[in-house]
């Protein structure tokens, strides 16, 4: 461990990693730096620090937030993400348990349809889904929850039933022999055991819904702009993009994600690995 040769080797690797880390952080830092520059200097000198001529303070933030109504966008994004995640976790854990414990042609068919839905790209159903959502009046922040639960049903059910298969039946049987009904057994016995899977499902879905662009754009994008829709809206028609406002809004969009990540890092990385390996 501590031979001089080995130690110098370690120092070289450490420096190499530090340089790489800087390269990974640089794009975000450059955006942050430019968010305080006047929009007239952003495209001509994006890699220079703001100076007396180019510094504009909070102006880009105020202008950007006004243009895209950032506070509203944040509210819609938060509302839709939180309630979609709750809905998906609850609905798919219940379905996952039912499909694992009840074996009929019906449950098998539903299970395979759900698995199939995971490999179908969104473009396949994009047009027909948004028309259906329109006809059923799901084109509002509450209706869109139905769509998210529907699209999230595949992965959620798949992950919950994958875990439930590993739980021994005896506990549930004992509860039911003692007279517990199926809902009592599920919520008192099974649900508490699903905690780690529920965290994984919640994290994967939170990341997906929060960052999702097309689904909210197509269904509720005119009246209720979530953060990604609002940011893309800054591009407007064919006019030039206000890069000052854009930089400020990118920073505001990244801050909640970075806070969430730093607070839940361990769960997030484990969740993403579990999702990748099982999905």
């Amino acid at each position, binding site marked *: 461990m501590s031979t001089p040769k080995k130690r110098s080797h370690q120092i070289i690797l450490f420096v190499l990693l530090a340089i790489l880390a800087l390269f990974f952080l640089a794009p975000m830092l450059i955006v942050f730096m430019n968010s305080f520059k006047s929009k007239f200097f952003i495209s001509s000198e994006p890699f220079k620090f703001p100076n007396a001529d180019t510094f504009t303070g909070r102006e880009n933030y105020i202008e950007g937030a006004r243009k895209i109504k950032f506070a509203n966008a944040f509210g819609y994004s938060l509302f839709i993400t939180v309630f979609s995640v709750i809905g998906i976790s609850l609905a798919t854990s219940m379905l996952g348990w039912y499909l694992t414990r009840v074996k009929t042609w019906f449950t098998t068919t539903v299970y395979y349809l759900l698995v199939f839905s995971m490999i179908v790209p969104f473009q396949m159903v994009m*047009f027909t889904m948004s028309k259906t959502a329109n006809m059923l009046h799901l084109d509002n922040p509450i209706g869109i929850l139905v769509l998210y639960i529907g699209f999230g049903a595949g992965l959620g059910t798949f992950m919950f039933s994958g875990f439930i298969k590993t739980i021994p039946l005896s506990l549930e049987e004992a509860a039911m022999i003692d007279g517990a009904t199926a809902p009592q057994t599920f919520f008192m016995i099974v649900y508490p055991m699903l905690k780690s899977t529920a965290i994984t499902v919640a994290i994967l879905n939170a990341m997906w819904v929060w960052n999702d662009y097309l689904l909210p754009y197509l269904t509720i994008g005119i009246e209720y702009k979530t953060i990604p829709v609002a940011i893309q809206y800054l591009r407007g028609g064919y006019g030039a993009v206000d890069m000052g406002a854009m930089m400020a809004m990118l920073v505001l969009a990244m801050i909640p994600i970075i806070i969430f990540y730093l607070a839940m890092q361990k769960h997030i990385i484990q969740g993403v690995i579990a999702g990748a390996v099982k999905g």
Partner: protein
Amino acid sequence: MQKSIQKYAALFVLPALTCFVIAFLVPMIMGVVLSFFRFTTVLDGHFIGMENYRRIFIDREFTNALIFNIRFTLISVVTINLGAFALALLLTAGIKGTNVFRTIFFMPNLIGGIVLGWIWNLIINGVLYSKGMTVVSDPKYGFWGLVVLMNWQNIGYMMVIYIAGIQNIPVELIEAAKIDGAGQGTLLKSVIIPSIAPSITICTFLTLTSGFRLFDQNLALTAGDPGKQTEMLALNIFNTFYGRTGFEGVGQAKAVLFTILVALIALTQLAFSRKREEEAA
């Protein structure tokens, strides 16, 4: 027990299933059917057989998007996986600060595609500014811009999967190889790489699939410019649906072909992992 659970079928099944039928199943069936119809809204279709599929190829848009997408995906799969594997090796070598580095490298993966696209729009335009060009001046800038963006987003993600794979290798296996006199190169080639073969399969297919499905980043970075030359499949389908009146059916037919392509990749992965499990058993 099965009987007493079945009494509550409606409670357990209906919430998720109803949403699934509305959001996915009905639109999916309608989508397949409508790919054989001419329509502008979903209720005014005329059956036209394979006509939509024929019209996909009346211009070179779709073929160009397919070629661009294949080139983009193949290069990205290679560079992402090499980069991620190299980082995973460095981060399992017992260097100080490993956790901080892992946190940093993974971070871009959490940022949404639209935001990512605009971040790199700024940076690439900044680099090209001195030449008087932007990311949409020449398709090659858009192409390499998307490759760099994709690498930045996915290297950290694949890295954590490779790290998990490397950490699962039994310590005794590595010790034994060292005692037998294996050098770093042999260790890598004969112990580490064969042991993490499942991780390699997962990461290859994950990057392959996300490369073909890429949409948000494509829209925000280049929006397909100049002149549709950096348009990938998903964006081309979107623009066919919403950018060309009278082409809704063609868009739907393209979506069916796109789905078949993505499904084939998924089935290949399934066959791969099945084969490996059988070999292991």
